[in-house]
């Protein structure tokens, strides 16, 4: 259930990571995509040359055939303005829409930010990160053969300002206009958002302050072009107009969807997508466990199946205990998401207590209860390995005696809150209570309604001392990890928007956040890792637990299995059908 809760909070976040040269992420025809804790590369920004298509072929890939998806729920948002969940973004940006920039696999497992619609990953016009220029490639077309224009990209961004459609990332929007007076291009308003200028096939973004991570921010789906004439407002979610390699042929919301080729998509303009299958079908309604059982059975007619749903915990042991049997059908690896115990710094003000909580944390038992090494890997920092600039450190190695010493024999009573979402959460609470008692910390465990869990722990007046939370980087930089979770940026504006669940702020840390935010990306990246270590060492505002791990299984006729670290899920741009004639209907 922790996974579930984790999905709930991370549903809104997204992107992350890069993979380095030492990655084992094969993504080739041999079919086993793994990524065992590879560290994010600092060499992340691609050049104009890197932005050229077509994408390097996947080894052994075949063109043609039909891939069949099964899952419990439909992709709630496919409108690029509203898409913010990893798997939804994967479908939108991998199959249906293109963005100004995007992430490309370099060939050795590492990724690079490159121009997608744009000719490069952005030009910092004056070298001060305040004005960014993007030029669209020539000959880009929509599903009906009409030309994609810079005006359409601006219109797409303009839509995402509208409160009715603002489910997606809002970084770029908030940077362009902090006051957010502009409410989108509706009810007679401007069609181009504030701070954006369109000149032919060129887009210019102007900001009041230095925004050095604009190239990452425009890789979010809401820079996908939307022609004004095709804008159906909230109904656009049901059938977005395609600028990517596939288009929606038919869709019954909540039940099924079929994608067919967009004949006007040109592979040689696209450095990221492959588009091997002729057709994709999607069926929704299968419970996660039944989903896994069906994929595992691989019965006749089911060989082309795949899913974004990881192998269900009930049968995970069968799979991981017998990996050879599933060779060529697996994707598994460490994801970008962390799990940690937030310490309520407004209540637990004594540094010694927070440090004691760190020394006494039963990290191994936590991982074991959650499903073992195929569900999570121990993590002793806030950032996870795959974020470029990650620094490995362990400032509080498990030591019960040290924890006791820090507490100096004082009776310490703390309130631990957990989401009442199933048996496991209760078992975990009991485990923490039992283990922390060994160090002299008495935990009172309190179950709270799963519906309101994040509302409650995000409320600065909450009466709890310790609770679980999780986070994943929006893009491959510590800037989307540290400031929202351990800085003022994440502090509560109202109970719905706060993400700094520890309610931790420190002047010195805030100054460093400001300094790093003004640096060019590659200079700033290692700084975030350093800052991560400084925060935990000096203030211990939280207790790191793990980084999540997941295992996916596909039918035997599916190839090109690859864990896309950027969205931490199965990469649709590389999947192919091994024998296109099988189950083609």
């Amino acid at each position: 259930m922790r996974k579930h809760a984790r999905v709930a909070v991370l549903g809104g976040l997204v992107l992350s990571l890069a993979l380095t040269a030492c990655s084992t992420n094969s993504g080739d025809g041999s079919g086993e995509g793994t990524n065992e804790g590879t560290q994010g590369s600092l060499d992340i920004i691609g050049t104009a040359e890197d932005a050229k298509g077509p994408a390097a072929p996947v080894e052994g890939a075949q063109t043609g055939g039909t891939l069949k998806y099964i899952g419990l729920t439909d992709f709630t948002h496919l409108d690029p303005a509203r898409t913010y969940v990893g798997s939804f973004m994967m479908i939108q940006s991998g199959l249906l829409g293109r963005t100004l920039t995007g992430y490309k696999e370099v060939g050795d497992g590492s990724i690079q930010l490159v121009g997608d619609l744009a000719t490069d990953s952005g030009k910092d016009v004056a070298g001060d990160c305040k004005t960014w220029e993007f030029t669209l490639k020539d000959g880009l077309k929509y599903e009906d053969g009409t030309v994609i224009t810079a005006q359409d990209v601006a219109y797409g961004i303009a839509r995402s300002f509208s409160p009715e459609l603002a489910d997606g990332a809002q970084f770029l929007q908030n940077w362009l206009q902090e006051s957010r007076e502009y409410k989108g291009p509706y009810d007679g308003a401007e069609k181009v958002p504030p701070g954006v200028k369109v000149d032919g096939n060129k887009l210019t973004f102007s900001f009041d302050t230095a925004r050095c991570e604009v190239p990452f921010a425009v890789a979010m789906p809401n820079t996908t072009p939307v022609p004004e004439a095709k804008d159906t407002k909230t109904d656009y979610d049901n059938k977005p107009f395609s600028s990517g390699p596939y288009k929606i042929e038919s869709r019954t919301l909540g039940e099924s969807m079929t994608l067919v080729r967009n004949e006007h998509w040109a592979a040689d303009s696209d450095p990221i997508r492959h588009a091997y299958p002729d057709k994709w079908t999607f069926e929704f309604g299968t419970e996660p466990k039944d989903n896994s059982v069906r994929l595992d059975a691989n019965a006749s007619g089911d060989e082309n199946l795949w899913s974004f749903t990881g192998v269900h915990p009930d049968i995970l042991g069968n799979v991981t205990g017998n990996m050879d049997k599933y060779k060529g059908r697996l994707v598994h690896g460490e994801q970008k998401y962390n799990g940690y115990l937030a310490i309520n710094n407004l209540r637990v003000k004594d540094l010694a207590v927070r440090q004691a909580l760190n020394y006494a944390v039963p990290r191994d038992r936590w991982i074991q209860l959650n499903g073992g090494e195929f569900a999570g890997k121990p993590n002793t920092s806030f950032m996870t390995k795959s974020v470029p600039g990650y620094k490995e450190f362990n400032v509080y190695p498990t030591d019960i005696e040290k924890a006791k010493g820090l507490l100096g024999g004082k009776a310490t009573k703390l309130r631990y809150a957990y989401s009442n979402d199933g048996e496991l959460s209760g078992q975990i609470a009991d485990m923490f209570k039992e283990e922390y008692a060994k160090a002299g910390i008495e935990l009172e465990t309190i179950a709270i309604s799963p519906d309101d869990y994040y509302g409650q722990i995000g409320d600065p007046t909450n009466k709890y001392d310790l609770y679980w939370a999780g986070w994943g980087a929006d893009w491959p930089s510590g800037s989307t990890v540290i400031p929202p979770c351990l800085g003022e940026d994440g502090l509560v504006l109202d109970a719905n928007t706060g993400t700094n669940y520890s309610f931790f702020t420190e002047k010195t840390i805030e100054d460093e956040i400001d300094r790093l935010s003004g640096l060019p990306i590659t200079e700033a990246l290692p700084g975030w890792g350093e800052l991560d270590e400084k925060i935990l060492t000096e203030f211990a505002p939280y207790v790191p637990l793990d980084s999540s791990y997941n295992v996916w299984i596909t039918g035997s006729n599916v190839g090109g299995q690859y864990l896309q670290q950027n969205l931490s899920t199965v990469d649709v741009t590389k999947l192919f059908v091994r024998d296109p004639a099988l189950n083609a209907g």
Partner: protein
Amino acid sequence: MLRFVVRRLLLIVLTLTVVSFGTFMLFFAAPSDPARILCGTRCQPAQIEAVRDGLGLDRPIMTQYVEYMGGIFAGRTLGEGDWAKDCSAPCFGYSYTQNQEVSEIVARALPVSASVAIGAWIIQTLISVSSGVIAARKRGTAVDRGTIAATLIGGALPIYFVGPMLLLIFRYQLEILPQPSYTPLLDDPLAFAGGMIMPWATLAIVGFAFDARLSRSQMLETLDEDFIRTSRAKGLKDRVVFWRHALRASATPLATSAGLGLGGLLGGAVVTESIFGLNGLGKLSLDAITARNLPIVMATVLIAATFVVFGTFIVDMLYAAIDPRVRLS
């Protein structure tokens, strides 16, 4: 007769009004904010406001209720300005999580559930009544004992065991049955039956026991009655006594049980639909309750209540047709 029908119909209207009002109020009595839940955990305040506006949650509850009920009969407009949406009758509101009108969602789910329930009901009733009656006819023989044993086993098995077992054996191991799915009957009758066969079999296996035992005991009881002895004494053939007189006299409680059974199947379909991944009403309402999706919950509760009250009404009418002793008054 007419008086009975009118009185019952009025009662139906009253029942449905109470049910709709009760469901509506329950959601407002709950401590959580429906707009915030619908909007998700990382929703901007402006979006919550938009959802609240769309649902009309900022107006008095009674006004909202009256508007909602009005929409069912006359349709209404949801939202304002560029964002207004026409929702034609029967308008059960708009589902923000599914981004479509509730009536469309329900209209798609209804035939799925009806196909599962009615198909299973027909099979279950045929098997249970015939096996019960035959067991009574062959009382004390191996057929009788076999039937009783089968009902014991069937009655002891839960749906969530039988369903996955059938899937495992007939789909994943032997690979002789197709993956359960819903194809409209008129589109392709063969695919319809193929996709439904496992859900039907599951419900029939689990559900036939009660009615089979009831038919058997009812028949045996009737066969001991005076009028049967009289019929026999009058020299009627055994076949006529059994099939025409005894069976008809036993039919009233069987009709009640089978009628209620149909209602039960519609309810039991929640589990069956989930197991076989069928997007029917049961699964829809379960998901809606979990997500506190008020418009969907309202619609599914109202539809379920309508089925139950009309089902009971029809059973009452059937009584009179089957048993002349019952008067509609």
